[in-house]
């Protein structure tokens, strides 16, 4: 990542302690962070802020909708569909992983098996290649 380049991440995670940890680590790594605990809040952020570069998404969220519902909405919106999505969840069933990837998520991680640093470094790689492609 270029030194002064800051990416904006929308973190959609319902557990506050986890959300705080993700936010802190992302900020340490020079990202701008927006947080949401429900699909509704996440959608509102997307409507209000037009430069969200990447989404960090959990499966189970507050309210009736899951990360999967959010991904469908994201991919069906012409303004949002190109935003890369990293799913970070503890409920890694085969069908769920397959559904997320088929619907266009970039990667799926089981939370308890990965370091924050690893996920962030993968996000940086994808962001960098996205920016390269834009040039």
């Amino acid at each position, binding site marked *: 990542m270029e030194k002064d380049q800051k990416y904006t991440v929308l973190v959609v995670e319902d557990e506050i302690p986890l959300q705080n940890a*993700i936010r802190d680590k992302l900020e340490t790594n020079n990202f701008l962070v927006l947080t949401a605990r429900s699909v509704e809040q996440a959608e509102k952020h997307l409507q209000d802020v037009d430069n969200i570069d990447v989404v960090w998404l959990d499966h189970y969220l507050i309210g009736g909708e899951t990360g999967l519902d959010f991904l469908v909405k994201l991919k069906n919106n012409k303004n949002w569909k190109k935003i890369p999505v990293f799913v970070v969840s503890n409920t890694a*069933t085969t069908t769920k992983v397959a559904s997320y990837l088929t619907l266009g998520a970039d990667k799926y991680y089981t939370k*308890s098996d990965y370091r924050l*640093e690893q996920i962030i470094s993968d996000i940086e790689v994808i962001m960098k290649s996205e920016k390269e492609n834009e040039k």
Partner: protein
Amino acid sequence: MSKNIVLKTEQGEEIPVADSAAPLKNKKNEVIGCVVVFRDITKEREVDKAKTEFVSLASHQLRTPLSSINWYAEMLIDEDAGKLNKQQKEYLAEIYKGNQRMVGLVNALLDVSRLEMGTFSIEPEKTSFTKLIEEQIKEQEPSAKKKKIEISEKIEKDLPEINIDPKLVGMIIQNLLSNAIKYTPAGGKIDIKLLKKEDQFEFIVSDNGMGIPKKQQDKLFSKMFRADNVRKTDTEGTGLGLYIIKSILDNTGGKITYKSEQNKGTEFHVFIPISGMKKKKGTKELG
């Protein structure tokens, strides 16, 4: 007899039963018949299923607080919240290590419950067995090096790709290799071989480690079994690894055999048919 015997009532209802049999002999000690007793085990099955489901649910719920400990410990170790002194670093490293062990245990318990509930899926795809072995060796080399254990590999050249679930076979290789490293004393040796024998692949892991006491070998693949000699030296094992391997192979048409002698070493042979594994739809994946 098979573990899954059912008796069918006239109405077509199936009742799971356990059976025991005894020969009937005449005065000359000749077998003239047999008494077979069937016992209704419906209740036992239900209790067993409830227990497995509970383990699955509890393990799943544990993953959230474990992730929290993991991530906060990671940030402290990385000094994101300020400089640490040497002792603080050491203590945090222990917290992180202990938590990693717990994550490993929860993952193993989830795998066991998925195997027992039959909810795991088998997703075969064209896979290089050789590549799977090399990936696992690379991953585990640091722990072998720490103990100055030499890993040598002898893999037959130009082996064809095989239609297997890479995750499941990866778990088998990973468990056998990590056991060999764990139970081989410093300076020991581990040999890994892969060969094609008629209609099957044979994968061999042998070590010159602690071995398994003869009188306990029949329990080797039982759930949570840990041999007396390893209990004394290693407190970290769960006794789930070999049980998981055996269950995977039983469910995918494979086989495992072993030879072991205490204080000399152990050799495991895994056989996987060249025809590969059959796809099975499930709600969960292992590993």
